[in-house]
């Protein structure tokens, strides 16, 4: 074991750096899904569409701004703004006109409504943005690279992936934790998550909270997409890939748990990058293996609380 570390310790260090940035992105998408699931109890498949629309919009808005001659430094704020814009427009539309009609229905029906929406939005994306890869990497290029020393050599990392992505993820985590614990609205969201019946019995205006949470969750999905757009080329189908990983995070993290989502994202991000170094064929299944192992030990998810059933 010690020998192994001597040989591979440095590689493990590199894997750690890579894992952090991918964990950051996974977290941003998954935490939004988890919040929505916690409050609305809807497994929102269309979360993946919001991710894709967020990514496409950020790239389009960025390209448009660049064509107008907006300075390069603005590309980062533009990413954040476009994500907020997408979430604020698309989120309420979906919640008001679609989800609101089905809150009384069974969970599976709700899930399928979002699945249907996901299918519709897949084609909408194609109609709006076409099928050719779209990319706009101003934000990544703007920040340049940093050389990380490695065994007498050096490895360039982009500052964007090494610092910005994990940084925004951490800021989001801290901000969310503060919001949920220290503000009234946040506490109401927590109350609805942990005991919906009691919360509504206490006179909480569920419809307002649902709208707020869904919009917020949509913004987070769009933010994940927007932040991925400087490094990834956008093509049809990116939403489907993202959502299925987020599902795994949510189930592993536990109902509505943001810290759980953070820890799970970290485990999955690191697990995958370690796999790429040492057993690349396992990379795809790592998230599911983590999920199964965690649920074996903690059936309610990493940070989930057992729902007490009174008899």
């Amino acid at each position, binding site marked *: 074991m010690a020998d192994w570390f001597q040989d591979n310790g440095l590689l493990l260090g590199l894997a750690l750096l890579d894992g952090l940035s991918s964990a950051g992105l996974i977290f941003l998408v998954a935490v939004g899904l988890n919040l929505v699931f916690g409050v609305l109890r809807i497994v929102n498949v269309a979360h993946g569409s919001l991710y894709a629309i967020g990514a496409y919009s950020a790239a389009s808005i960025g390209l448009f701004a660049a064509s107008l001659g907006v300075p390069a430094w603005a590309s980062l704020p533009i990413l954040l703004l476009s994500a907020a814009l997408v979430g604020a427009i698309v989120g309420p539309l979906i919640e008001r006109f679609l989800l609101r009609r089905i809150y009384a229905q069974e969970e599976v029906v709700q899930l399928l409504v979002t699945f249907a929406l996901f299918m519709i939005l897949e084609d909408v994306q194609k109609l709006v943005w076409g*099928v050719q890869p779209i990319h706009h990497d101003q934000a990544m290029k703007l920040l340049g690279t940093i050389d990380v020393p490695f065994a007498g050599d050096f490895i*360039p990392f982009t500052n964007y992936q090494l610092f910005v992505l994990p940084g925004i993820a951490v800021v989001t985590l801290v901000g969310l934790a503060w919001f949920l614990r220290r503000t009234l609205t946040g506490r109401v969201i927590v109350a609805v998550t942990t005991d919906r019946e009691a919360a509504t019995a206490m006179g909480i205006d569920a419809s307002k909270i649902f709208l707020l949470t869904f919009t917020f969750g949509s913004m987070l999905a769009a933010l994940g997409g927007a932040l991925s757009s400087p490094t990834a080329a956008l093509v049809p189908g990116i939403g489907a890939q993202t959502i299925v990983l987020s599902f795994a995070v949510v189930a592993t993290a536990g109902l509505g748990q943001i810290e759980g989502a953070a820890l799970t994202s970290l485990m999955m991000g690191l697990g995958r990058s370690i796999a790429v170094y040492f057993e690349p064929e396992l990379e795809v299944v790592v998230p599911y293996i983590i999920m199964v192992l965690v649920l074996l030990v903690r059936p309610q998810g990493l940070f989930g609380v057992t729902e007490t059933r009174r008899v």
Partner: protein
Amino acid sequence: MTDTFSRREVLAAGFGAVMLPATLSAQPAARPAEFKIGVTTFLSGPASVFGVPSRRACEMLVDQINAAGGIAGVPVRPIFVDEGPGTDHLVGEIRRLVQSEGVHALFQSISSGSCLACTPLSRELSKVNLLWDCGTQRIFEEGRWDYAFRTQGYATPEVLAPLLYLLRTKPDIRTVAVINQDYAWGRDSWEIWKTAMDALKPGVRVVAEMFPRFGSTDFSTEITRLLALRPDVVYSTSWGGELVTFIRQATERRLHERTTFVLPVAEASLQILGRSMPEGHIIGARGDHWNNHPAPRDPAAFNAFVNAYRQRFNEYPIYPCHHMAQAVWALKAAVEKAVAAKSGGWPSDAELAAAFRGLTFPTPTSTITLREDGQGLEDQIVGTSSFNPNFPFAVPKDMRLYPAAQVSAPVGQKSTDWLKTLTPALIQSAGQSI
């Protein structure tokens, strides 16, 4: 169960007669009012980056042909079907195209899986089937199909030509890493490369074999590993969004300064990459149809095609457009040949199929001959990425043309067996500079 069987027998007996006419194709054929082609291509999902441009090319060419009076006087109508939903759906769609729409020929498909599933069906349905883009070597090496013809090259020459180019231009390489999409083409193209490399230059060490999930949007970890390993060559047959993402993430982190990329399918992504594509790396086009081809067979025809496409769709055609065009031209040539053979009479499905065997048809850049096994011989041009003032994106320089016959496995041989017989002498003898 007895019920089932008696029912089956009743059904088979009762309705067998109804079924028969649909499958009998030797009966005399009347000249149709229009010639329908069933075209399967990706209209959804990641591979629609190929499917949609090829569909446009098809529509454009059909418009041109119809404006000029159609094929042998018959106007052409394409019917498009999406490959995206998967094999079981596509197999049903092929049946619908043949049995309900009554298409006269099938153009299919982009995905190897689709081709492998539908080619046997085309024989069962006795319908001419032009494999217009898929590259799998398995089709004609593992079976014999009377009605199927591939009007372009396939995986073996498309991988072997870039390898020969690499070994000629960089004879000293010692290490290679692969990063391919995790699906059949990614695996097959690596097996072909590895087998050929071991025969042509034994002793090259493979330092990393990475097959990230199909549809990945981040290769940072793979790139870090490649940066640390410093292989002489990074080989990738990825395409679409994944190739664009990989190149951009890799160049930003200066991987291209440490290694030589060999990208046999790069052509389709170069326009999107624009200036992000680094210079000095080996690029292929699954054929010979580069926009800066220095000596096409018919420059006027070549420019006419490229310009018409650019004018209509505001972008350069990519290789799937050329492959689609090759299928259309092959069809035109074969139908005219078959009609001529019947002195103006209209050919049956079997007669049309017969016209394809051994057919040589012109393309703007060269000619393509369909071998006796149905495989088309399309020349390959490989070059080194560079920029010139005529194009806002990378194009090859120092191009070498590899005639198809030199880099394809002979009829009746499996690619992997044939590749093992190659000798290092081929590196110098194959191809010519253009």
